[in-house]
């Protein structure tokens, strides 16, 4: 009997074990398949590794071990090298099509502040600028203007039938060689050096995912029916604050119920504070909740057959939209609203709307990254977030429309959209409406819109908002004009080039151009190093070498030999760039040239924080849809600056601007006297130094209604400098309802940045509380909307991931896991 019981029990045990394994596999399969993920991850890493090994060995074999010191005789030769940049071919700007398209949208800025009785009685408005502006005279003349004046442009028909512009550059005047002020630079705010200009409707058959797909479908191209039909973007810009509404139209083209999942980008500084699900005429406002709670509500609603939508944040610039129980042939729209501040460089404001998430590389063993997989290959990356990409020859019906109303408050002198074809209509001298041309509606690159205001003046730099929570402000500080007359210190330039697979082709060619240009502009007394990384890192030599003509030639040769392929082990590049002793005689400047397509941003940023020392980091984003979150954060942590180099833009011009910036000292030791105001919670907490062409935005809270005067003081060289700004919180002309959200978003960003290197377990809770209180998206909060009016019939249906094209200029075969 005992034997029988024993056998029965053992059999039961075996069955249970099998059942357990079966159920676990079943569960994991439902979520993507654990075993498959591991295998897929491994396979991918092997593929990246194999592709890279050859290039690595080639590059290493060309490394220079020891190089001689510079001599005085070499200086003239160096100057010759520096000026040997005579002709640079670039994509010419296509003319903006003028079309008197009248905006149908009014200026709907009034927002009711829920819980604000005053607001309930009419809303609190905001509008434009007043006529005050002490800072107006502090804006420097633009370097871009200078460059344009230098260039004699000759329009020709060039390669691939494109219009090219040959720019004949005159020799640059030699730059003064001592910039002692830069050696003591401290800053914790980024500065945008220049902006990317990506191509407009460029049909390039060699580039998967390029604009070729939108021009005309070839016979081989197949349109795949997908649930995301259209994205509509409406922006309203007032001064330097943008209010943007993004509407995603989901439609079920299938015969059965589906859940749509779409991973998409938004600007890294977007303060997402509204979410509305639209079903016909019914509009359901989503509720901000703790992320886990929102996910549970969504899963329950999905399971029970209710139409529901969930918005989560995977990175500050990557979001996931899920819409459950979309019935066959039905449409559900999702409307997202956010505020963001615009970058301001050399008199130009810049509005960016990213359209596609670039394919990321995730280091082996990571699971919290962003996987890049082929359409239909759900789960094979093994990453928590996954983006599916269309193959070359495939296209979806998803297109995008963009309309931006600009109210500059002062006359707009010029509008430029280097990335796309647009129509531009003038409403008044201060107002413009810009619309994306319908022929340029494939969402595969960042939309970049710039506008230049008249003269050198900005009417107002201070914007406030007051409600029951108190007062909030943003203050844009402009650098003094007289910084341009001083000199820089000798530098130790470290160039770090991303040679991974996603950079292969146009991006790495553009990055090589940029480094080449930079090497040629080094000054006597400077030293330099070139580091490349993909699966591992290698470099020109063991230590930085003097900028002699001979060394520069070797550097140029080394750079020319670098090709793209393999993984993106950026951590290796960071170690190589920051882990060697600092030359105390020189200002160390580390330039990262990368598309930033990695999934382990937090790890990278933590490493930079821990290893930075006295170095400054200048990050250069190369490509059409780069990871701006990573590049901006690198520059902020590195107390440097960021610049973006478009694939059809002159890298030389960007580098020239970069050198223009670092060739002048900053306004240092900046202090602010707030007068009679009680000001708290200012971000950034430490006011950064002010560089030429680089304004910074401060945001904070204040108490009190009375007018006051803000005095900003600092030193430029041996001179004291003072900037005076009147503070009139009651002036309705300088108010904006989004300021509170901008402040809260900045606080979240600051806490999140701290969390990358600080193990304080209270930081996530602090972020969550701020996000909940201000109704903002964060890593710890999410928007949920459920239509409780009816249950749809049947099971919750199949999950359909919305695939996207790879960004313009990025190769599918070297970046997407199949």
């Amino acid at each position, binding site marked *: 009997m*005992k034997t029988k019981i024993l056998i029965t029990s053992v059999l039961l*045990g075996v069955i*249970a074990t099998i*059942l357990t394994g079966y159920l676990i596999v079943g569960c994991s399969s439902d979520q993507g398949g654990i075993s498959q993920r591991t295998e897929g991850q491994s396979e991918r890493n092997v593929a990246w590794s194999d592709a890279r090994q050859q290039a690595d060995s080639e590059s290493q074999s060309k490394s220079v071990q020891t190089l001689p010191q510079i001599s005085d005789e070499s200086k003239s030769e160096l100057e010759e090298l520096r000026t040997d940049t005579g002709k640079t071919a670039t994509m010419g700007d296509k003319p903006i099509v003028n079309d008197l398209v009248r905006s149908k949208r009014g200026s709907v800025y009034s927002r009711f502040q*829920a819980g604000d009785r005053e607001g309930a009685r*009419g809303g609190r408005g905001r509008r434009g600028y007043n006529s005050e502006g002490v800072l107006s005279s502090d804006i420097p003349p633009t370097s871009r203007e200078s460059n344009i004046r230098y260039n004699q442009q000759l329009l020709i028909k060039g390669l691939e039938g494109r219009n090219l512009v040959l720019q004949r550059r005159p020799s640059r005047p030699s730059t003064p060689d001592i910039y002692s002020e830069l050696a003591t630079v401290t800053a914790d705010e980024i500065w945008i050096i220049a902006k990317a200009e990506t191509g407009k409707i460029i049909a390039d058959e060699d580039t998967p995912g390029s604009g070729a797909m939108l021009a005309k479908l070839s016979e081989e191209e197949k349109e795949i029916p997908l649930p995301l039909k259209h994205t509509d973007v409406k922006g309203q810009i007032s001064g330097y604050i943008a209010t943007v509404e993004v509407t995603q139209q989901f439609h079920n083209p299938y015969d059965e119920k589906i859940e749509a999942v779409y991973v998409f980008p938004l600007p890294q500084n977007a303060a997402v504070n509204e979410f509305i699900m639209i079903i016909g005429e019914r509009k359901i406002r989503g509720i901000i909740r703790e992320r886990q709670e929102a996910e549970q509500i969504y899963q329950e*609603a999905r399971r029970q057959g209710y139409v529901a939508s969930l918005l989560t944040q995977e990175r500050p610039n990557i979001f996931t939209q899920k819409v459950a129980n979309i019935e066959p042939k039905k449409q559900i729209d999702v409307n997202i609203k956010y505020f963001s501040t615009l970058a301001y460089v050399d008199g130009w404001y810049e509005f960016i709307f990213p359209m596609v998430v670039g394919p990321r590389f995730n280091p082996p063993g990571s699971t919290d990254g962003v996987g890049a997989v082929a359409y239909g290959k759900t789960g094979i990356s093994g990453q928590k977030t996954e983006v599916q990409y269309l193959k070359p020859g495939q296209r979806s019906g998803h297109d995008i429309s963009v309309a931006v109303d600009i109210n500059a408050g002062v006359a707009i002198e010029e509008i430029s959209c280097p990335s796309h074809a647009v129509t531009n209509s003038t409403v008044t001298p201060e107002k413009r409406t810009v619309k994306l041309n319908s022929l340029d509606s494939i969402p595969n690159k960042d939309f970049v819109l710039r506008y230049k205001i008249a003269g050198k003046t900005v009417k107002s730099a201070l914007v406030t908002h007051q409600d029951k929570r108190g007062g909030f402000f943003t203050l844009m500080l402009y650098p003094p004009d007289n910084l341009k007359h001083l000199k820089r210190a000798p530098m130790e330039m470290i160039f770090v080039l991303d040679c991974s697979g996603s950079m292969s082709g146009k991006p790495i060619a553009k990055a090589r151009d940029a480094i080449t240009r930079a090497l040629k502009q080094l000054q006597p007394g400077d030293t330099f190093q070139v580091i490349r990384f993909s699966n591992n890192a290698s470099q020109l030599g063991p230590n930085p070498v003097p900028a002699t003509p001979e060394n520069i030639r070797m550097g140029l040769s080394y750079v020319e030999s670098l090709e793209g392929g393999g993984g993106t082990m950026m951590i290796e590049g960071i170690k190589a760039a920051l882990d060697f002793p600092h030359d105390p005689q020189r200002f160390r400047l580390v330039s990262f040239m990368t598309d930033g397509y990695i999934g382990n941003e937090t790890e990278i940023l933590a490493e930079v924080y821990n290893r930075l020392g006295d170095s400054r980091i200048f990050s250069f984003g190369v490509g059409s849809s780069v990871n701006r979150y990573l590049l901006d954060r690198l520059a902020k942590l590195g107390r440097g600056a960021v610049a973006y180099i478009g694939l059809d833009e002159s890298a030389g011009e960007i580098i020239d601007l970069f050198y223009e910036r670092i060739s002048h000292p900053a306004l240092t030791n900046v202090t602010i006297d707030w007068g009679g105001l009680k000001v708290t919670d200012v971000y950034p907490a430490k006011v950064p130094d002010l560089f030429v062409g680089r304004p910074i935005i401060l945001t904070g809270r204040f108490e009190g209604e009375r007018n006051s005067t803000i005095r900003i003081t600092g030193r430029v060289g041996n001179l004291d400098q003072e900037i005076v700004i009147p503070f009139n919180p009651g002036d309705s002309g300088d108010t904006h309802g989004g300021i509170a959200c901008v402040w809260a978003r900045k606080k979240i960003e600051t806490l999140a940045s701290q969390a990358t290197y600080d193990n304080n377990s209270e930081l996530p809770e602090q972020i969550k509380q701020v996000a909940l209180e201000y109704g903002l998206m964060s890593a710890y909060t999410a928007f949920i909307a459920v239509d409780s*009016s009816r249950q749809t019939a049947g099971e919750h249906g199949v999950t359909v991931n919305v695939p996207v094209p790879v960004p313009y200029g990025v190769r599918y075969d070297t970046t997407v896991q199949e």
Partner: protein
Amino acid sequence: MRTIVIILITLSLIVPVPAQQADRYETSVQQKVRFAQLHIYLDSGNQALAAYQFELKATAGQIKIVGIENGEHPAFKEEPPYYDPAAMANDRIIIAAFSTDKNLPKGRTRIASIQLQIIGDAEPEYALELTVAADANGNEIPAKITYEKGEQK
């Protein structure tokens, strides 16, 4: 005794699986969860309604707000009402809206439909407190707020 031990060991192999499943559907297994609507009406009599603010409480039962739907009148249809996130973070539901339309509703009108998740078997009871109703000039007007439980379709 030995049999019991063996069976217990066997069961221990099985238990983790349903336990894991239970984690995934914790709320549905431990507490019944359902979704329902609550329609909110405001009667401003002969006065045109331009703005309002109210607070919703559950006096019985456990609820979570999972959406706020727009009203029925064109003046309150374009945008769904707003909620106060700071209040929501402290378990208070404060909802408000305003309209700048010339055509404003008078009399009884559905101003919002609240989408709710109801947790547990208890049928919730609700209490509404109208903070303010106002006309187009921002003047407070008398109004009565009521609710109706939505029917499941």
